[in-house]
C-alpha cells in the first residue's frame, strides 16, 4: 500500500471515529430529568410584567400571553409554576444566578447572550409588517416607489422606511403620532401602505374585524423562551413542551386570545 493511500485511509478512519463519538454522545442522552431541570419542584419563571398584552401586573397577579403560555408549558411538563416579576434589567441576571429557572417575557433571541443562555424555538414574530389593502397588494418593495406609506413618527417603522428608501426608491411619507393612526390612514384609503409591527396590526384588526389586509414581514423579531445554557434538561423540557403546544394548536389559541 503506498503512503498516500494509507494516509487517506487513516484520515477516513479518524473522521469516522469522531462522527461515531459525536453521534453516541447525542444518542446516549436519555430523557430530560425534571428534578435536575427544576430542583425547586416547580418551574420558577422570570417575567417583566410591564409589556402588555404579553405580561401585565394588576397588583394581585400577573396575566397576559406570556403568562398563559408559561402555564400551558408547566401543565405539559406537569409541574407547578411560580412567577417572579422582575424589571427587564434584572431578568438575565436572575436567570444566570439561578433566582429563576426560565424567562418568558417577550424576549427576542439575542446572539450575544448565547454563551450563558439557550433559547427555545420562537413562539411569536413581532417583526415589522408592510400592510396593504387585500385587493391592492404591492408585489415587491420596488413597487413602493412614489406610493403613500403611513407609519408612526420616530418609531422602528420610521427607521425601517429610511432603510427601504435607501435601498429602493423614495416614497411619499405619511408620519403620524400613533401607529393606529397609520393604520387608520390605510383603512381610510389616505395611504397605499402602512408599516407597523405584528402586535399592533393584530390588536387593530380585533377592532376592525371586517377589514382585510395583505401583509409581508419587512423585519423579523422572534420571541423565544430563555433557559440557562448549563441547564440542558430545562431547555429540552421547555422546548419540547413548546413544540407540542405548536403542534396541537394550543399556542395559536393562546396567541389568538390576546392578539
Amino acid at each position, binding site marked *: 500500500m503506498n503512503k*498516500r493511500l494509507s494516509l487517506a485511509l487513516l484520515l477516513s478512519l479518524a473522521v469516522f471515529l469522531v462522527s461515531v463519538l459525536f453521534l453516541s454522545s447525542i444518542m446516549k442522552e436519555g430523557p430530560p430529568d425534571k428534578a435536575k431541570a427544576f430542583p425547586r419542584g416547580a418551574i420558577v419563571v422570570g417575567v417583566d410584567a*410591564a409589556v*402588555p398584552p404579553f405580561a401585565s401586573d394588576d397588583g394581585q397577579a400577573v396575566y397576559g400571553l406570556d403568562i398563559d403560555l408559561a402555564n400551558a408549558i408547566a401543565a405539559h411538563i406537569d409541574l407547578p409554576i411560580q412567577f417572579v416579576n422582575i424589571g427587564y434589567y*434584572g431578568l438575565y441576571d436572575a436567570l444566570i*444566578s439561578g*433566582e429563576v429557572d426560565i424567562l418568558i417575557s417577550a424576549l427576542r433571541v439575542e446572539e450575544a447572550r448565547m454563551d450563558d443562555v439557550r433559547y427555545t424555538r420562537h413562539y411569536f414574530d413581532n417583526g415589522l409588517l408592510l400592510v396593504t389593502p387585500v385587493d391592492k397588494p404591492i408585489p415587491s418593495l420596488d413597487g413602493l416607489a412614489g406610493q403613500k406609506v403611513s407609519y408612526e*413618527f420616530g418609531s422602528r417603522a420610521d427607521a425601517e422606511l429610511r432603510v427601504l428608501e435607501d435601498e429602493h426608491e423614495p416614497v411619499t411619507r405619511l408620519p403620524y403620532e400613533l401607529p393606529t393612526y397609520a393604520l387608520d*390612514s390605510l383603512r*381610510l384609503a389616505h395611504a397605499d401602505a402602512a408599516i407597523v409591527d405584528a402586535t399592533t396590526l393584530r390588536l387593530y384588526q380585533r377592532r376592525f374585524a371586517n377589514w382585510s389586509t395583505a401583509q409581508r414581514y419587512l423585519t423579523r423579531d422572534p420571541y423565544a423562551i430563555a433557559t440557562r445554557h448549563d441547564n440542558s434538561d430545562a431547555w429540552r423540557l421547555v422546548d419540547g413542551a413548546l413544540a407540542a403546544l405548536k403542534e396541537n394548536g394550543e399556542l395559536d389559541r393562546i396567541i389568538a386570545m390576546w392578539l
Partner: protein
Amino acid sequence: MFNSFRQMSRRFFKLLPRPGWLLLLITVYIVLSTTWSPVEYVELGEAQIVQTTKPQVCVHTLLENEVHERKIKRSLELVREMGATTIVQFFPWAYFEPSDDQYNWTQADLIVRHAKNQGLRIIARLGLVPDWARPASDGRATTLNYLPEASFDDFAEYAAQLAARYIEEIRHFIIWNEPNLSFEWGYRPVDPAAYVRLLQLSYRAIKGANSQALVLAGALAPTNEAQGSSAGLNEMDFLRQMYRRGAAPYFDALAVHSYGSTEPADAEPSPDRLNFRRLELLRQIMVDADDAAKPVFITESGWNDHPRWTGAVRPSQRLQYTIKAFEFTAANWSWAEQLCIWAFRYPAPLNAYPDNFTLVSPEFDLKPIYYAIQDYARGWERGATQWLPPPVAS
C-alpha cells in the same frame, strides 16, 4: 543562500504527501483567520470645542462596551455636535481591574482621550465588581452588582487609581449606581448604612488621589418601594437614612435619576408618583438636612417611546416632554448642575424596551429626539411639526 532555501522547501513539500500540504494550508488559513485582525488606526483629529447655548445639556454614554475606536470617536463627535457639554460615562471596576492590583486601562484611555479631544467634560460612574472581589454567596453565583463589605476597601482603591490616572481629565465621580434598588445591590436587601460606609471610604480615597475631585453620592433611583420591600427602598427614605447615618461630609453633590415615566415634564411631584419633578422631594430632604449648598446632578433622565412598555410614551410625546424638561430645569432649578439623558447609544441593540431610551441607534441612525435636543441646545429653529394630524374619513 537563496538556492539552499529553495532546495530545503522543495524537500519539505516532497516529504509531505499531497493531502498533507493541503491540510497544512487549511490549518494555516484557519489559524490566521481566527487570530489575526487588522489593527484599527483612528486619527484623534483636531481638538474641538462644544458649540452650545445650553451648558446643562448632558448625556449618559455607554462606551465601555464599544469594541471599535472609530465608533467611540463617532459617538463623542455626535454628542458634541448635539450641543451637550458633558457625558456621564461608566467606568466598570470589573473591566479595568480584572485581577487584584492588575489594571488594564486600555478602553478607559481611549474613551477619555476622545472625550477630551471633543471638548467634553466627563462624569465618571463607578460600579460592577470583578470576580476576584465577590466570592460565591451561600454556594450561589453572585451578580456583577454584588459588593461584599470585605471588598469596600478594594473598591475605594480602584476609585483612587481612576482619580489619580485621569487627574487632568475627570473631576466628578459617582459612587455606585442606584444603591436603593436590590438588583443594583447584588440582589440583597438594600442597606443605606453599608452604602454610607462605602461612600466614606471612596470619598477619602478619591480626595487623597485628587483633592480637587468632586464625589457624587447616589445615584438614587426613583422607586415607590416601601421599607422592607425585597425590591428596594424609595429614594426619599434612602436619602433620609443616609443623612441619619452621617453621609453629609462624604459627598460634594447628589446624583439622582429623574425619569419622566408616562407624565409630562411639568407634572406636579408627589411621593407616590414617578415623574420628572419628583426630584424636588429629594431636594427638600437636602434642604431639611442643612445641605442645600450642594448641587444636584441629574445623571439619568428621559422618556421611553417603546410601543408597548407600560412606562413609555409615544415618540412625539417623548420629544416634547424632553425639551420641556430641559426648559423647566433651566428656569426653575438653580441647584441642578446638569441634566443628563439616558442613554446616548448602545453599542448593540438589547432588542427590548430599553432600546427606546436612546438618541442614536447602534448603527448611528439619529432619531428625531436627537435633532430636537440639538435644536434646543444650539438654539436652532427647525420649523414645523413633524407629524400629520389624525386621519379622518373624507
